[in-house]
């Protein structure tokens, strides 16, 4: 099957339905720069409520509130452009010390892209009976793919794979800390706080 997977209800096993959704939401933040539709959704009443709910879920109400504020701070086109610029500078750019490549291999001591984390994630995707869609050009140690794989494991009720997937996300704590430092009080600093909280919470369980 080549079509991209759509979000499906979480299997009614020993998993939390919201956790998977939060993982997907976080994955989306890191996968691409936001488009107008996503910004529009985040600015809507329902979107803002959902973000606040994530803040409650992860016990980071301030961070969620900051996101809501950033999304509403200006016209939709202005916010969209501002966040697109910030995304590029943080995750796609290269110059000087502003960028934070969202790949485990950069942060786990490998010293280059496409390190062993890529191989381990490929193995985990196989376990989930998944492969990367042909439209995706990112290696599977991209944080968005790791988070989305975790969400998929939760949806499939594959609890035995969750520890390994969380293990692959160990680097995310340092990544989040650097992101917080790099983005100051920006949108992605708030996302970083939620990422950190998500990983902490998941590991505690």
């Amino acid at each position, binding site marked *: 099957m080549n079509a991209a997977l759509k979000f499906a209800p979480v299997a009614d096993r020993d998993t939390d339905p919201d956790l998977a959704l939060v993982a997907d939401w976080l994955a989306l933040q890191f996968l691409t720069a936001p488009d107008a539709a996503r910004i529009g959704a985040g600015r809507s009443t*329902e979107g803002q409520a959902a973000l606040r709910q994530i803040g409650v879920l992860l016990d980071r109400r301030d961070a969620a509130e900051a996101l809501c504020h950033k999304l509403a701070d200006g016209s939709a086109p202005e916010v969209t452009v501002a966040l697109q610029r910030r995304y590029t500078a943080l995750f796609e750019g290269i110059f000087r010390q502003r960028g934070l490549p969202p790949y485990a291999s950069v942060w786990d001591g490998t010293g280059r*892209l496409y390190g062993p984390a*890529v191989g381990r994630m490929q193995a985990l995707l196989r376990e989930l009976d998944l492969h990367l869609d042909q439209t995706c050009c*990112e290696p599977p140690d991209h944080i968005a793919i790791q988070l989305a794989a975790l969400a998929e494991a939760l949806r499939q009720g594959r*609890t035995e794979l*969750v*520890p390994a997937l969380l293990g692959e996300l160990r680097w995310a704590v340092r990544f989040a800390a*650097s992101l917080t430092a790099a983005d100051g009080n920006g949108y992605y600093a708030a996302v970083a706080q939620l990422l950190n909280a998500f990983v902490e919470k998941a590991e505690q369980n």
Partner: protein
Amino acid sequence: MTNNSYKTLDGPMLSKRSFLKGSAAALGLAGLPLFARGAAAQSGTQGVLSGCHWGVFYGMVEDGRAVEFKPWEEDPHPSPQLPGVMDSLYSESRIRYPMVRRAWLEQGPGADPDGRGSGDFVRVSWEKAIELVANEIVRVRETYGQQALYAGSYGWKSPGKIHNCQTLLRRMLNLTGSYTNSSGDYSTGAAQVILPYVSGSLEVYEQCTTWNNLAENCELMVFWGCNPLNNSQISWQVADHGAWPGIARMKEAGTPVLCIDPVRTETCEALNGEWIAPRPQTDVAMMLGIAHTLYEEGLHDQAFLDRYTAGFDKFLPYLLGQSDGTPKTADWAAEICGLPADTLRDLARRFASKRTMLALGYSTQRQHHGEQVHWMLITLAAMLGQIGLPGGGYGLSYHYSSGGSPTHTTPILKAVDDASGQTTEGAAWLAGGGAVSIPVSRFVETLLNPGKTMQFNGHEIELPLIKMAYWVGGNPFSHQQDRNEMLRAWRELDTFIVHDVQWTASARHADIVLPATTSYERNDIEQVGDYALSHIVPMKKIVEPVFEARSDFDIFADIAEKLGQGYAYTQGLTEMDWVRKIYEAAKIESRAKGMEMPVFDVFWDSNKPLAFPVTEAQEDFVRHADFREDPLLNALGTASGKFELYSVAIERYGYDDCPPHATWMEPIERLGGPTTKYPLHLAANHPQMRLHSQLCGTVNRETYQIAEREPCWMNPADAEQRGLSDGDVVRVFNDRGQMLAGLKITDEIMPGVVRINEGGWFDPENPREIGSLCVYGDVNILTTGVATSKLAQGNCGHTGVAEVELFEGPLPEVTVFSQPSA
């Protein structure tokens, strides 16, 4: 929680009830386009054969990921740089997506030129990028004319007969219009222009007497600024590394070796050679002093000069001082080159009494008036009279790429052409073409002086107005001299487009950056050894392209398509169609040479290089032996058919900086020079662990960097004089610029000279400020941008003096290679 089980978040507030149920749309989660159902097939570890500038190797692949590049088992001396080659594939500084500089995208071409290099890029889709490039080509051509588009794009592109990105760029542009081209190169810019006047051919890219023959016959091997055991790590095609077994044979034969160089080289070390260190840039004076001794003591070979050369009679008055009042005696030369006159006299006697090979390196002509060096060496060799004899004479291509490794009998692989209709056999980058062609190192001068008339090799060029530069397979922000002058010139460009694999300084200073594949992400075919031509190697794709990288072939195909010439560009052939076509043409040619190559599929699937034979005669080749044997039948390509020690053609040009015979001319600056301001000469040598700037952004850097900077070698005496210690971060500066470096104190370099290898990545502390401190160590901030002379207009990468001092104050972080530390 245990390590092998997982519990859901069953806190009192959440339980399994979903608070976010129904919120997916509100969160923008319409479906992440990431996964498809079904596990991907897993492949075991396999070795995929390929080749690169550093040699033939196997890319070891596990589950679609390269994990190691292992040298081919028949490589006689695998390059230690190979780990960096793999690292370049997966470098942290890999360009991942098409990017456009924000000011250019939002405000149009030419916007905020000083913002280039400051890193404010916007990611765009490939579709958008192609459209932007195609439209800009059209705009520039329509607004300013065809010549306003510069495609003289130069540099060490990857090997391979299909994916020669520079040819492919010109192919696309020839099919859609024209452009300004470049001629010549940075390696031998002066020598390759003057040598056809002197010996009738390029020489610097032609086979010299083989190592085998030297081992048998040479009695004194002189490496003059020539270091094959460093520079033969690489080849323009795929390296064969034949210099190592060749030099090992010389060592085994016990051939005495003399190394004339400001640095005690790897070659000198390996052969336990005698090291003589004259002041840099004084080679011509030193050679004249030796020549004068030869003549004065009657050690020259007048019979050889009479039979095989022309113009010695016009050179002699200069040598003897009859024409200018200054006899070029050993004593006169000693004052200039800094060696004792007795040493020069001794060299003259030793050269004349032994079968002597004078092996000259390229660096000696990358200096002001560099043309004179090769001319004078040939004059000296002609006076010795050993040219064309086994083990004697001169060799101008031992310097790199294993020149002297015997040439095999092989067909020559044809390459995808540039669609200009011109055939470019041999040195393709030396061919002209385009609406206008300028000497390659004069691009900065051209940008700053449109409309100016430039003298070049006997004719005049009106420098064109350039508004757009398109660069592929090169890094001008490394190889061009005088970086700050270059930055000033770059302001004149509306648009600078770069294809590359890593965020080099050139990519960072571009307006549009397109991510190209490395050789290891595409299929190609190449020959092994620039001189040996020992094998044809399948350059197989090792891994799929990473991120959004595309091959230059495909990028230009899309641009050509946008401009209405898509089919003409591709000829309807795929990458593998081209590989097969090129191989099969060679297969036909091989029959004419009495060989039968296997069918293509057998060759490709064998995963081995295809070997070609070498005869005893080829193993024992002596350069110019045929000319010596019969100078009429095998006349040289000069006007007289002989070695021209005086050129009537050059006399007619009347250049004030290139007289008609080899002449000592003061460079603009040198150690001990009459007007020189700074006390230390800059030896901008070839690096040991990278290829120019290639691989600087890889793991290889860890083997040589000092305090995370490019090393600066200094003699202990110079360090003591300045109160410097090993490992210090120093500021190296002159009137042209300033840079940081890490100090290495060593007696392997002569006093008065510091060595900073060329190719360190330019890392300005403030990219918006011309003259800003380079915090990593790009030596071409300090070297001069002047031309060698009006004849060749070559670069002077080895002309430069500077001062070195301890850097004090907060140390700026090197940021050019990587992302922030974790």
